[in-house]
């Protein structure tokens, strides 16, 4: 019965669709270079952190592989948003930042974005730096600090993960709006254009952020049930919380 309803729902919402990243050639060259310069140090930190963690613990490898695949899939998966009649995609960087840390999450996003730019006509090589900065860096940092802040305040794991996913998604589109407004504004006032772009994103990204929050909470809770020891190793939870899980 549940399967039947799932099929019906998917048939109702499924349609040929496209998604988003800043496309090739949209940003002027100086801005494209500036976003590269801002994004690449985080990718370098991600490579360093990945090497350190891989040397410390071999079980880290499958977790990185899993999240790299998940970020790649969901960041090129166009989701139809009926309230707006448009499509966009979740980012997955909130989930990756909670489980791997913000630097490795930025690296994972960079690889996913490169593959999409090269083979899926999704994003672009000139705008790769800008897309890494918005989705990889800002998305990861927003998700990570939201999660850590909420956990420090004693918020339950699932709820903290939900808000981390939500913040990661919304922060990504805020950053995309800033990148776009600063790159294309010409003589137009920056804040006015930023406001227009943000408002245009709202009908699509508002519900999609909630979906991303739910996906993030689902993934974190699934790992909590199946492999709580990994969450302890990654300092997502404490050993005491695992005993509470039973």
């Amino acid at each position, binding site marked *: 019965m*549940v399967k039947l*309803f799932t099929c019906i*729902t998917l048939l*109702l*919402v499924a*349609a*040929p*669709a*496209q*998604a*988003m990243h*800043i496309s*090739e*050639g*949209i940003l002027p060259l100086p801005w494209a270079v500036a976003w590269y310069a801002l994004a690449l140090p985080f990718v370098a930190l991600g490579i360093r952190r990945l090497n350190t963690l891989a040397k410390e613990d071999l079980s880290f*490898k*499958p*977790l990185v*592989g*899993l999240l*790299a*695949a*998940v970020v*790649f*899939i969901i960041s*090129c998966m*166009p989701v*139809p948003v*009926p*309230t*707006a*009649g*448009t*499509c*966009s995609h979740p980012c997955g960087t909130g989930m990756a930042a909670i489980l791997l840390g913000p630097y490795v999450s930025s690296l994972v996003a960079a690889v996913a974005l490169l*593959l999409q*730019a*090269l*083979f*899926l*006509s999704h994003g672009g*090589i*000139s705008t790769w730096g800008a897309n890494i900065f918005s989705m990889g860096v800002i998305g990861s940092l927003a998700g990570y600090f939201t999660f850590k802040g909420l956990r420090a305040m004693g918020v339950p794991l699932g709820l903290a993960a939900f808000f981390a996913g939500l913040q990661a998604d919304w922060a990504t589109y805020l950053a*995309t709006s800033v990148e*776009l407004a600063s*790159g*294309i*504004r010409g003589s*137009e006032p920056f804040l006015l*254009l930023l406001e*227009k*772009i943000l408002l*245009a*994103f709202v009908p*699509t*990204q508002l519900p999609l952020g909630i979906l991303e929050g739910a996906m993030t909470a689902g993934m974190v809770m699934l790992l909590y049930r*199946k*492999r709580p*020891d*990994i969450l302890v190793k990654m300092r997502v939870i404490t050993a005491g919380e695992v005993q509470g899980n039973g």
Partner: protein
Amino acid sequence: MARNAEKVHRDQRTGKIRKALSVLAFLPLVTFSLVSQTFCPSAFAADRWPGVDETVVEKFASERGREAHEPLINTDQGDLLLFVFLLAGTIGGFAAGYYWRMLLEGKNKVAESAKIKKL
């Protein structure tokens, strides 16, 4: 014996309640989809369900004289894009499944080594 039968009965009842709740959770989504597809104008536009890259990013950019260029490797030609998206989804899905299995096998290894240590 009676306890077991009672437990089985209770499990069956819980299963039925879970299924009913799952169906109830899907109903608002189905209704929402039907209603919004009927009343949402962009869902009936000539190019249905455009991405926000077109409706926001490229729209704002083109209004200010910045047009998107052709990608380095242009796969957006006919059904080629469908093919590469399907291929990417398949490879990504297999990779995710493979690593998920590795993670769960890791759990069994941890449990086994704990048993050995106890012995």
